[in-house]
């Protein structure tokens, strides 16, 4: 199961980026093998459709969950139609490292 986290920078100690489509980087954690991929967001500077293009990118990588600060009204229906889970953080000072630790604990519990 792959989870994408929107991140400000491409490092483990970066904080979460509150925006989805225009975030700096996607961190993709794969719970099946524990791998972590840092994927700079190619649509960060896009004026239009950044969110929709980002979904295509993540959907193509088989991401099934996305953790971010919020999701726009345009992207929610598309994520719903792909059955991708959206997780909206309330504590946005949390680091990527901490989130991945939480996800790791969960995959230990369920296996």
């Amino acid at each position, binding site marked *: 199961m792959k989870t994408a986290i929107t991140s400000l920078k491409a490092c483990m100690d970066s904080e979460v980026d509150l925006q989805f489509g225009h975030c700096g980087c996607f961190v993709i954690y794969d719970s099946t093998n524990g791998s972590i991929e840092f994927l700079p967001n190619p649509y960060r500077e896009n004026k239009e*459709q950044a969110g*929709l*293009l980002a979904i*295509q990118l993540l959907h193509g990588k088989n991401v*099934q*969950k996305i*953790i971010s600060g*919020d999701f726009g*009204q*345009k992207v*929610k*229906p*598309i*994520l*719903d*139609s792909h*059955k*991708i*889970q*959206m*997780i*909206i*953080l*309330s*504590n946005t000072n949390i680091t990527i490292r901490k*989130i991945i630790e*939480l*996800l790791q*604990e*969960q995959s230990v*519990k369920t296996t």
Partner: protein
Amino acid sequence: MSRIKTPRKLSNPPIIRGFNPYGPLVDLTKTESVILHYEEFEAFKLCDYDHLTHHQASILMHISRPTFTRIYASARSKIAISFAEGRQIEVEGGKIYFESDWYHCNQCQSHFNNPDRMLQLTNCPLCGSEQIENAKQEDKSITDREEISMHLVCAHCGYDVNMQVINRYSKTHCPHCKRLMRGNSVLKNQI
């Protein structure tokens, strides 16, 4: 760059998979069934069961009015073909999605949706806590529900009221006699 198509929004999946005609002259082996798409089913239901105007129904389905009218006309024509020619109706998906339900975790305070309505959510996807509950519907920023102002007249007691209806307009109760306002419980006009 091609435009990314927005899928159509449905309130709920239809409860039926299709219909079979019967009668001495019906021969299902000789006729092809009529395929009624979910969106056509929904358009037909919103207009002829819930008695919404095309305008109101198009808002609920998140599509333009002309698109709605086209889908609705197609639904009626397919149902007519089935009736006239004694053909089976199969209800099938099209380019549609179902709005997912949203939850809140009392442990880590995050919000999340349930992407698959066939499965039940028991734990927070982030912290694993079981302390989760349905996110409140009035929390618009989270659930993104559409509100429309409508003028409703109760078919049971005649009570006349302007109210804000949230998506599931068909489950609106009369503020006076508390009975369900649906079907013929007239929906006069949008304000």
